[in-house]
């Protein structure tokens, strides 16, 4: 049975729970220690974005299998105000909040796959994946 869990994201304590859940999933998939650390860190950045800018939401944690490759996919969804200019939001240092603006760009660098969909007024969905090499 492949893992497919959805966790809710409402407070900064939930970010800790999400980091732990992603770590457990990454360990079960036998990702390397560096890959585990990267995806857990990316999850932490995206979870904080969902909370701070999206007003909270959900994260789906899915184990993937593609031939002999194993992977972990994370989907962050919120029904917040959306991002008007996604290209700009991906640039390092761009922030409308109090952070460093590394969240989206940093999470993209830490992932093997990265996709973002955002509609102003409707919300944002960010999907990342990390595969075993």
């Amino acid at each position, binding site marked *: 049975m492949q893992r497919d869990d959805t966790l809710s994201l409402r407070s900064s304590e939930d*970010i800790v729970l999400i980091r732990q859940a992603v770590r457990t999933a990454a360990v079960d998939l036998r990702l390397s220690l560096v890959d585990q650390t990267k995806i857990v860190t990316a999850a932490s950045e995206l979870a904080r974005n969902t909370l701070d800018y999206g007003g909270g939401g959900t994260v789906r944690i899915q184990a993937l299998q593609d031939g002999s490759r194993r992977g972990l996919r994370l989907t962050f969804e919120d029904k917040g105000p959306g991002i008007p200019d996604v290209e700009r939001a991906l640039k390092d240092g761009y922030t409308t909040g109090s952070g460093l603006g590394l969240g989206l760009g940093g999470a993209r660098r*830490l992932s093997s796959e990265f996709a973002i969909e955002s509609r102003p007024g409707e919300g944002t969905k960010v999907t990342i994946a990390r595969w075993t090499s």
Partner: protein
Amino acid sequence: MDRIPILKMGDYLLVTVQVDMHDRLAMTLQEDLADRIVEARARAVLIDISALEVVDSFIGRMLGSIAAIARVLDAETVVVGMRPAVAITLVELGLALPGVRTALNVEKGMEILRRSLDASGGNGAGAESLAQPSDADAER
């Protein structure tokens, strides 16, 4: 509310982060450390993060803030024990912790602080001052 303990040892404050910090706990640590530096007249802060499996941009920024706040309060900070996977991830994330001094372990961190306090005429924990007597007098 839970807190991260801050130990005093001579002129040093020691912090060992043992738990995965949620954001509020990290902010509390920053405030507690600022208070303790003044209250204990600490000259140096050593933060051991060897138990941390993840340092994201929030925690990285907090470490930078602690170092900056300590500097303004005339104390030096060294962060020790970062795991190799954490270092790789932090750099890829785009955060190289500018302004934060690091050392491999507590022992090396203490050595850096001792040397730096000696050079500035302060007294480290159990360290012999290498400063010239005239320099030490000038400090007082």
